[in-house]
């Protein structure tokens, strides 16, 4: 019969196996997320999916090491900066298209950004930049939602266990 009180295992009862596997897996999850973001234009995936996978690596980190250690690694202030960085990257690329074509092209018509000499290569590079912006914002927002859901409970536990270690 399980106890009525739930324990998500975010604070206590850590094991060396979980910590080691997490330490090994997190970089590969993040590498896969970057692969999904970069290859989003030509195949399945994209900024949103890559951002969610990147955020799930932080979720795994929180599950293994607890919210306090994860909060030190990925602070709330960095989160807020990353939200707006992604949105500014998206909107900035879109507005650059209008600026470089002197108002002839639409918002996010990537071909008019003069990154290379070919229209199609400009389009591909602009699409990748926009995907990176989407990925940064989604990663920061989902990490922030999860941290805020877990944060208060851990703080209460720390308040209760003050004096230990």
């Amino acid at each position: 019969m399980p106890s009525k009180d739930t324990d998500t295992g975010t604070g206590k009862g850590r094991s060396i196996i979980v910590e080691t596997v997490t330490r090994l897996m997190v970089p590969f999850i993040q590498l896969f997320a970057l692969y999904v973001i970069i290859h989003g234009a030509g195949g399945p995936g994209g900024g949103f999916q890559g951002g969610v996978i990147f955020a799930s690596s932080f979720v795994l980190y929180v599950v293994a090491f607890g919210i306090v250690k994860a909060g030190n690694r990925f602070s709330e202030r960095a989160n807020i900066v990353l939200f707006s960085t992604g949105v500014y990257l998206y909107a900035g690329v879109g507005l650059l298209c209008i600026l470089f074509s002197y108002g002839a092209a639409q918002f996010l018509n990537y071909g008019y950004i003069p990154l290379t000499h070919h229209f199609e290569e400009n389009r591909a590079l602009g699409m990748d930049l926009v995907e990176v912006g989407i990925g940064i914002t989604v990663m920061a927002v989902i990490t922030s939602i999860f941290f805020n859901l877990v944060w208060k409970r851990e703080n209460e536990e720390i308040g209760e266990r003050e004096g230990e270690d």
Partner: protein
Amino acid sequence: MIFELDLVLLFLVVIIAIVAITTRDLLSAIMLLCAYSFLMAVVWVEMHSVDVAFTEAAVGAGATTAFLIAALSRTKRWEKK
């Protein structure tokens, strides 16, 4: 599309959905919703819609399950009768 595989998958999806809304253990309901999302991802792949399947697997089976468990840690595990 393989008709038999579709039939089995959709049957399982319906069964899991019914069990998820009738169970009183909320942790089991969350795990069943995770399985539901994963089976739906398989169904999307079966329908040759890999992009939707990718989103379903990443968001439905990954992020949403973590969110729901984090929300469950603030409340009771068992639903009232």
